[in-house]
């Protein structure tokens, strides 16, 4: 018996008797000897609750989190403020612990939340149909490709290099399963190269994938890109940032067929990358090809308003190998957090937040560009994130700035060899001008220092020891 189970010795005895088996071993009698584990699992002994907390807190203490640093990291997940109501509500047992609402009579809470979530995503994206969540951003992009194959009976995917590297990589991984080809179109001046795109598109193209703002922070002209796709009978898929949809033209207004995105910025925790949620919205014609759960409104036998899982005939538990997707467990709780967040911000709040971020980003971009050794990587318009070049090795600079308590941003060289000197800087409402000035000053010190310094072995060792908290 553990603290999570209740079968006392007396219970066990009575229960085994009722079953008619002499011992617990007897219950496992059908396991062939060859596959039985003849020893205990080699795991450390169980701990009391306080010890568990101690151990996990010790591990957590060895991470530099966004409370302990001034964080300009973005690249798809952002340090927005998540209001206390999100946690307070999502932690309620009634939302936290049930399963997928297969029994709608006792799941109206969850189902109505899905319906509200779908409404909010539909409003945000300007597209009429939204599902109730997918896993997260990049795999939602890949799921859009699966829809595109079904819709167009074609299998060539054209992706902008401005699409998040994780999205491109995930699409590539999935494509090997689908049997799809993935072709990339480069960037020009920070934006998807329209000429190259035109040249790459052909009548085998199932879909064009772009991101807005793109990975380098630049705001794409979605309408132009959608037109180019449509000219070849391909779908236009946009991966969009939900927060800046408060101020940027929604994909639905630009002719985009499928809009997907990462839900973390909508009041989600950073959580070292997950769990968050992916959203997926499309035009009406793709309704029956949508992946994932969708809630719909209906009435009960007495005429009461209610909600159910709609269009289940798309799904794996009904349609099996003919399903539109294999997803089962999605991210319902995170999506609940998302719709609470959006209701908290409200109609005006999302706009104001977007405006604030755009203005702060403009300030930060100018401020950083004024630092010796920093120049803009592109000068396309940006909204929440921008890219600069540093006149010193970026990882070196990042290390130095980190020692001053600042996470300066994302090193583009990790994923873009052509931008070895690139740094992507993200701005949220939590980054004050003071924080931005601090970053600028820190960079101003770190760049020349990184260039001057000859890193000796012994220095390296010392800083390693410090970083792991030893």
């Amino acid at each position: 018996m553990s603290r999570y189970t209740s079968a006392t010795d007396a219970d066990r005895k009575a229960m085994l008797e009722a079953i008619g088996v002499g011992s617990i071993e007897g219950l496992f009698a059908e396991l062939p000897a060859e596959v039985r584990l003849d020893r205990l699992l080699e795991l450390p002994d169980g701990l009391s609750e306080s010890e568990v907390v101690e151990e996990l807190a010790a591990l957590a203490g060895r991470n530099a989190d966004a409370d302990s640093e001034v964080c300009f990291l973005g690249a798809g997940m952002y340090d927005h403020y998540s209001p206390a109501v999100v946690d307070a509500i999502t932690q309620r047992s009634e939302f936290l612990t049930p399963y997928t609402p297969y029994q709608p009579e006792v799941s109206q809470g969850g189902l109505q939340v899905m319906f509200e979530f779908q409404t909010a995503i539909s409003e945000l994206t300007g597209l009429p149909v939204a599902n109730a969540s997918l896993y997260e951003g990049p795999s939602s992009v890949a799921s859009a490709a699966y829809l595109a194959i079904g819709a167009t009976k074609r299998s060539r995917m054209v992706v902008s290099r401005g699409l998040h590297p994780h999205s491109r990589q995930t699409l590539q991984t999935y494509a090997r399963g689908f049997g799809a080809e993935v072709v990339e179109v480069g960037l020009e001046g920070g934006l998807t190269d329209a000429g190259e795109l035109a040249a790459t598109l052909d009548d085998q193209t199932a879909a064009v994938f772009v991101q807005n703002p793109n990975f380098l922070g630049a705001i794409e002209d979605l309408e132009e890109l959608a037109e180019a796709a449509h000219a070849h009978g391909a779908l236009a898929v946009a991966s969009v940032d939900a927060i800046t949809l408060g101020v940027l033209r929604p994909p639905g207004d630009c002719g985009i067929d499928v809009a997907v995105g990462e839900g973390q910025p909508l009041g989600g925790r950073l959580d070292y990358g997950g769990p968050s949620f992916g959203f997926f919205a499309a035009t009406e014609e793709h309704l029956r090809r949508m992946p994932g759960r969708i809630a719909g409104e209906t009435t009960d036998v007495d005429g009461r308003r209610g909600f159910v899982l709609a269009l289940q005939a798309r799904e794996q538990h009904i349609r099996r190998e003919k399903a539109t997707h294999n997803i089962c467990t999605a991210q319902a709780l995170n999506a609940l957090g998302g719709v609470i967040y959006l209701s908290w911000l409200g109609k005006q709040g999302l706009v104001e937040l977007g405006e604030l971020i755009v203005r702060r980003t403009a300030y930060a971009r100018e401020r950083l560009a004024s630092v010796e050794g920093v120049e803009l990587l592109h000068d396309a318009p940006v909204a929440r994130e921008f890219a600069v070049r540093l006149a010193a090795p970026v990882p070196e600079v990042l290390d130095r700035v980190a020692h001053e308590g600042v996470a300066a941003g994302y090193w583009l060289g990790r994923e873009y060899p052509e931008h070895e000197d690139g740094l992507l800087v993200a701005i949220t409402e939590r980054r004050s001008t003071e924080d931005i000035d601090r970053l600028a000053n820190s960079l101003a010190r770190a760049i020349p220092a990184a260039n001057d310094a000859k890193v000796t072995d012994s220095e390296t060792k010392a800083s390693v020891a410090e970083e792991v908290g030893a």
Partner: protein
Amino acid sequence: MSDHTTRTPRATAEVPTPQQSEPVTTIFERSVRGRRAATVPPTDVDERPLDELIPARLLRERPAELPEVSEPELVRHYNRLSRRNFDLDTGPYPLGSCTMKHNPRVNERVAALPGHARLHPAQEPKRAQGALELMWRLERALSEICGLPHVSLQPSAGSHGELAGLLLTRAYHEDRGEERTRVLTPDTSHGTNPATVTMAGYEVVKVATDERGGVDLDDLRSKSDESVACLMLTNPNTLGVFDENIVEIARIVHGVGGTLYYDGANLNAIMGWSRPGDMGFDIVHVNLHKSFSQPHGGGGPGAGPIAVSDRIEPYLPVPRIVRGDGANGAERRFDLDYSGPKSIGRLRGFQGNFGVFARAYAYIRSLGGDGLRDASETAVLNANYLLARLRQGRGGKYLPLAFDRLCMHEFVLSGSPAKHELGVKTLDVAKRLLDYGFHPPTIYFPLLVEEALMVEPTETETKEGLDALADAFEQILAEAERDPEILRQAPFTTPVRRLDEAQASRKPVLRQPLD
């Protein structure tokens, strides 16, 4: 004593319950222009017109019609909504295949520590050593539990793990220059299995079930040839029985060069007793939201880590967690390795559902090896006890076991006699259980069993709780004998009664109409 005394619930819709009388209003319908729950920090920079910063044609013209409510209204709305859910913290939730085990509250506490919840996913590994070590330790624990040496935590759920598994299978075969086109799945398999097969570009081949509920070996043999890429199997399977022929099954599939994929949804039956790796599986997914206590959240989040054998290892998704060798007395450093030249690549963004890993790790540390074994033993004990109780009474007659054996952590009943002798369907029994305050079992799955009821009490339930559940079944079947209409009309006590699902798909209303 307990509060599980069974009273006969109402069987009338005449007087609505208080909840049934409550009007249903969405948050959008609560919205009043100008209200707000949030204020935004003041702009501390130039308030330049936005179209000076971004060309006007790229800007939004009219705001999204999000709800406008104050914080009290927001809280009330979702609190009220929450009460329209049945949850695991209310009572038994024996939903077969879903392992609705208790969600320890300490897991939520440790997941919420700022060092976890506020850690940016793009943080440099050297400044995320605690997170990487936690992931590394969880990988090691899952490896030990599954009996397979290598683990990737990346997949976001079981179905995602399945997809990973088949992509690994594909990469493995292709690397050996083989092109295989078919994947075997038993006819009892979960829907995600065949759906995944298609998504991974394979053809589904169904394998029959034998009279003991296991894989029909002859059928398996007849379908196993060089075109078979993989067999996907659950063991114990979705009938709740352990396939005793597993070693032979593995021999057959490996014999034709296929891989063996273990759908780990039922791992909760055997932790510490048997390991998929020892059964011969090459690839296993584990649902952390089932056996490892991550809350189900109304349909996620979860995580579906995979454990694999040596021969599959080269193809694992990137990035992988690696531990430095600590040479020259240096600290052992953890890192993310993106190299993997043969890797299938990424399955998603960043490193996976870390928050879920933290909870699962806390669970494993809370229980230890002993505790995990106790969990499985108790789950199996509870299932067999409930089964025994059901068989004693009318259950034995109207809801017989589909395959008459000892069960593992769950069992599947057939409502066929109830349907034919009493005129009540499994759906009716399930709906009436709602009135008795229980979440019903999974119904109509597996498809193989007519009018199936799949019952998984998990180790969480007490003996008293199981007795009460058995009593409720008994009373419901007695009601059915007396007046089957009660069941057909049930439920009577839930916030809404039976809903018109057909209408919802025929004329779908999938969002709030606004204006």
